[in-house]
């Protein structure tokens, strides 16, 4: 035999080491903190109160979270957007609108598919992306049923007037609505909800869905609020009325 056995063994040892480290090391890490404990943050949004030409919530989010515009609809990042809807196949039906963002699902497919657990669920139900861990594989963008995620496909320079309270942006990772966790943690409402309440019609209501004494819980008890695509079983934390 004229091949160099030592060469083979050397490469073999390297491959073995590489393959062995992976599973062992990863098995030791924590995986998912699914299932809320005391609180479950959520929203109820009334489409009947949402006016078609209003973008107050969207603008507030862009300002609060420094969400840039690339002016390219295919690449633009959207944490919250207005969706216009009307029944299929009915001539002349009125078009109505509602805002949609990440619904902070109780069974979030985005977190389930994330290979490195960069997407995780906080104990209070907020689904977060650790942008220092995300490898940018975009599996979560594929798996989210609500189109709530955006991949940052372009470098973004921080600009004058950016809100310093939110982390700066890096390209190559996926991001989405954080439910303004940084505000919630200080006892405030998400920027979109606050803006809707103060500057618009108050179509958005935010609170702890586990607490029966909140506005959102009262709206849920009317029995008129429902989740989008409840059939999928993801249990979104955002409910809609008037759809």
């Amino acid at each position, binding site marked *: 035999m004229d091949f160099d056995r030592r060469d083979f063994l050397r490469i073999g040892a390297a491959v073995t080491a590489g393959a062995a480290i992976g599973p062992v090391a990863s098995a030791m*890490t924590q995986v998912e903190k699914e299932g809320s404990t005391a609180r479950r943050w959520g929203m109820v949004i009334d489409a009947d109160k949402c006016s078609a030409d209003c973008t107050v919530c969207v603008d507030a989010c862009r300002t609060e979270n420094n969400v840039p515009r690339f002016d390219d609809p295919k690449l633009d990042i959207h944490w919250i957007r*207005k969706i216009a*809807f*009307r029944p299929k196949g009915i001539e002349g039906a009125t078009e109505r609108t509602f805002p949609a963002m990440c619904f902070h699902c109780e069974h979030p497919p985005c977190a389930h598919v994330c290979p490195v*657990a960069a997407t995780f669920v906080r104990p209070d139900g907020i689904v977060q992306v650790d942008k220092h861990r*995300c*490898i940018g*594989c*975009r599996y979560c963008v594929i798996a989210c049923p609500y189109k709530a995620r955006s991949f940052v496909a372009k470098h973004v320079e921080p600009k004058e007037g950016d809100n310093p309270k939110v982390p700066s942006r890096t390209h190559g990772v996926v991001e989405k609505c954080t439910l303004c966790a940084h505000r919630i943690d200080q006892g405030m409402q998400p920027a979109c909800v606050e803006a809707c309440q103060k500057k618009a019609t108050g179509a958005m209501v935010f609170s702890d869905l586990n607490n029966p004494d909140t506005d959102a819980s009262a709206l849920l008890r009317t029995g008129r609020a429902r989740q989008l695509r409840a059939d999928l079983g993801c249990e979104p934390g955002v409910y809609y009325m008037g759809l």
Partner: protein
Amino acid sequence: MAKIKYTRIEGRSGGYYAFMAGSALVASLLPISALILFLQGHHVTGMTNQVPWGMPIVMAIYLIGVSAGSLVLSSMSTVFGKTEYKPFARVASMLAVVLIVAGLMAIIMDWGRPDRVLVPFFHFQPRSMFSLNAILYNAYMLIGFLYLVALFRENEVWAKRLGLSAVIIAVGVHSGTGAIFGFVYVRELYNSPLLPPSFIAAALSSGTALMIIVLKYTFDATGRKLDVGYIQGLGKLMGIFILVVLYLIFIENVTRSYAPKNYEASSFLLLHGGKFTFYFWVGLIGVGLVGPAAIVLNSATGSSVRWILAAAWLQLAGVLMERYLIVIPAQILPLELLPGMEITSVFLDGQFATYSVSAVEWMYSIGLFGVVAFAYGLAIRLWPMLPEEAVMQEPPA
């Protein structure tokens, strides 16, 4: 069976140097395009927030598939007792290792953050098919490599054990790869329990096609004798695998199309999806599957080496088309946020997305082929992978 004498190729001819220089040149497209992706971001590709997975993922699952197919072929002699194929066990398993490495390169360099390549080794998510596959791919690479070592040492016992483990894990690897898509329950064109088995079937058919091509050209170029019976046998085998692929595609589409809620998805792929419908019927079904199957299963063309070779090329291209049609159209269809409603938004909700392969993605994909060709050329020059001659003792069953 007489002992097989394996030798390295001479590798001094002008042809060899031209092949190596050519493939090195093509291979260099991969790091160049990967660097562009990393530094510029994915906006230089055809990938968008509507179609986040493009050609790199297509190439990854293609290469991983061909790898699994090669590995199973390599084990035909060691595990399944088809000893007449023993002369090709080494080269097939070497190709399996080269192809899986290339497939992993295709995945990793497409990440937004390929610099975080070690992160998956330290964080694990047991519900993620990607995470599970990372383990499977590593194990597969390792076992494939050890199996190759056992083949080199002519250690029959270990070749059999490792070969069997390799076959089992190859099935796992490909079921897992199919499941990456099959488990995505919100997209009708992904969600299917048939994706894992149909990945395996296409892996086998394309792996066989690659073997036909590689053996024929290498043996001819190095002046080694290759019994035509081998090419004919592999051709028949490929034909049978293709029939299985066709059957699975048929069942999957009929089942999906039966439910009214899937009319839109099915009719998009099968009837009015523009280029995708064309790729499906002409590219995949016609040229990629029925064409080559008809060639190799017809007794006149099925015994002609030229025809079989042509069929193998068609099949290799056909499976690439199949991988493309698995990955892309499912992302073109809009997500149904409010079934029964028409929806629109600035985020292009409710609209059919568009995707076309960008220049960078072409470079990336072609570069991967260059990497495989270069590694193959190098391996047969460095180690005795190929038998001096492949003559059949008895015709294959």
